[in-house]
């Protein structure tokens, strides 16, 4: 049914270009359709075991490469990573298989953030400047009914071990990743897969950003006496960002029942 619309011009706050306007419409809508109410019957989900397998590729980062030759040590624990959790209330097993995607993710990150990248078999090697060993410390997830909103959420905590070429551990840097997806957009399993991808991308964005700023990760990668560290670190000393602060702190276990948003979770790390 047609409504009535009024548009009123108000004085602009800037003489030349600025202008504001308000339109207010009162609409009376007639429903001509008698849509039946379907009372959804509860679905018995016993025996259902969703398996989340991430096989996606990740975009090439837009970043200037550090002038270093980096060795990347991919452990079997990372490249074969699976996580399984049974939700006691539902008797549903959730399984996350993200090992192959982990390798794709870190290859995507490090191939662009270092001038030269070599895969190495251990935390020491000759002819390189630094060795990085990415690892997963924890993965957690929450369903909409747990968090009482419409979001499927995934938390992943990676760590990056940074070694000197002689195998000496310089630093272990925690990297949290958080992703959430609206359950009304995709079906449950697909939403969870999408949330996992967003969590991985989130972790990637932290790693890449931290390599461009004065952070523990960058300092460890560059080495204490790196000639580049002093100059660029001084330029970026004023740069802020809660995620960067998180990288400086000591990791703590993930919350038992993560119902809070990622930013809050990360601030605790």
């Amino acid at each position, binding site marked *: 049914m047609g409504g009535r619309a009024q548009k009123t011009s108000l004085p602009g706050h800037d003489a030349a270009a600025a*202008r504001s*306007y*308000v339109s207010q419409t009162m609409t009376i809508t007639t429903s001509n359709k008698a849509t039946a109410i379907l009372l959804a019957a509860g679905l018995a989900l016993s025996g259902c075991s969703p398996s989340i397998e991430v096989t996606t590729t990740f975009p090439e980062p*837009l970043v200037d490469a550090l002038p270093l030759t980096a060795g990347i040590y991919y452990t079997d624990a990372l490249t074969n990573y699976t996580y399984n959790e049974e939700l006691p209330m539902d008797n549903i097993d959730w399984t996350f298989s993200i090992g192959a995607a982990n390798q794709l993710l870190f290859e995507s990150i490090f191939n662009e953030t270092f001038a030269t990248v070599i895969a190495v078999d251990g935390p020491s090697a000759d002819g390189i400047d630094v060795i990085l060993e990415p690892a997963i410390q924890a993965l957690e997830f929450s369903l909409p009914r747990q968090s009482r909103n419409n979001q499927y959420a995934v938390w992943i905590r990676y760590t990056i071990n940074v070694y000197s070429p002689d195998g000496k551990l310089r630093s272990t840097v925690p990297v949290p990743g958080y992703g959430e*997806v609206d359950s009304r957009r995709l079906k449950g399993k697909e939403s969870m897969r999408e949330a996992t991808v967003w969590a991985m991308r*989130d972790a990637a964005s932290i790693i890449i950003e931290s390599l461009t700023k004065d952070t523990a990760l960058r300092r460890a990668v560059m080495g204490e006496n790196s000639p580049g560290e002093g100059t660029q670190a001084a330029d970026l000393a004023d740069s802020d960002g809660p995620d960067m602060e998180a990288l400086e702190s000591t990791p703590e276990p993930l919350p038992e029942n993560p119902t809070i948003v990622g930013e809050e979770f990360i601030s605790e790390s």
Partner: protein
Amino acid sequence: MSPEFSLPMTRLRACLSVSLCLFATACMTTRVEGLKNTSTGIGDGQSIVIVEASYHTGNQTEDKFVDCVTREVQKGSAKLAVFPDQKFADALFPWFEPRTMPQGPNALPELMAKPGVATRIRESGVRYIVWINGNTERTSGGGSLSCAVGPGGGGCYGLAWWENDSSYEASIWDIEDGESAGAVSAAVRGTSMIPALVVPVPLIARTQSAACKGLAKELRNFINEGST
């Protein structure tokens, strides 16, 4: 009660239900506002990208609302070209992720200064970034509706109602000028009800859909205003 009497009563109830269905209304109030900071316009080959504000800032805009606005602005005579948001985020990875995306127009220069970003945006043809904020909430409700089924049939009796409030804002950033072009907002309040006299008749106020269409229309006008 004789069959002769009960049959007309059944018909009467059915007629009442159909009448309610046809003539009763769900009421909505729509308010659309715009605030313009600079002159706007969009050239041939230029497009906009529509993104929802980051969930890292607590924003809970529904994905389907953003999809709806994206669809609606591409309709009509003043339609706008929309660059896919996921493709935009991928092209600028990792600087347009939920955590790293700029939180205000003041952050635009910093974004553009990052290596390769200005070139990628220029190549994409995106002129405006439209940030969607807001959500739809059920603010109140009441009444009661009960249904029963027996050997001779079934039916529902009662009245249930609820009120939804859809409030959204779209902030428009002009990438070319590196500043905020302004914002448009849509607030729709509507009361839905389900009266039932044997047959329930849902009268749904689709506030989110109305907010989407209102916002998209204002957005088209807002951006196209300076176009020739």
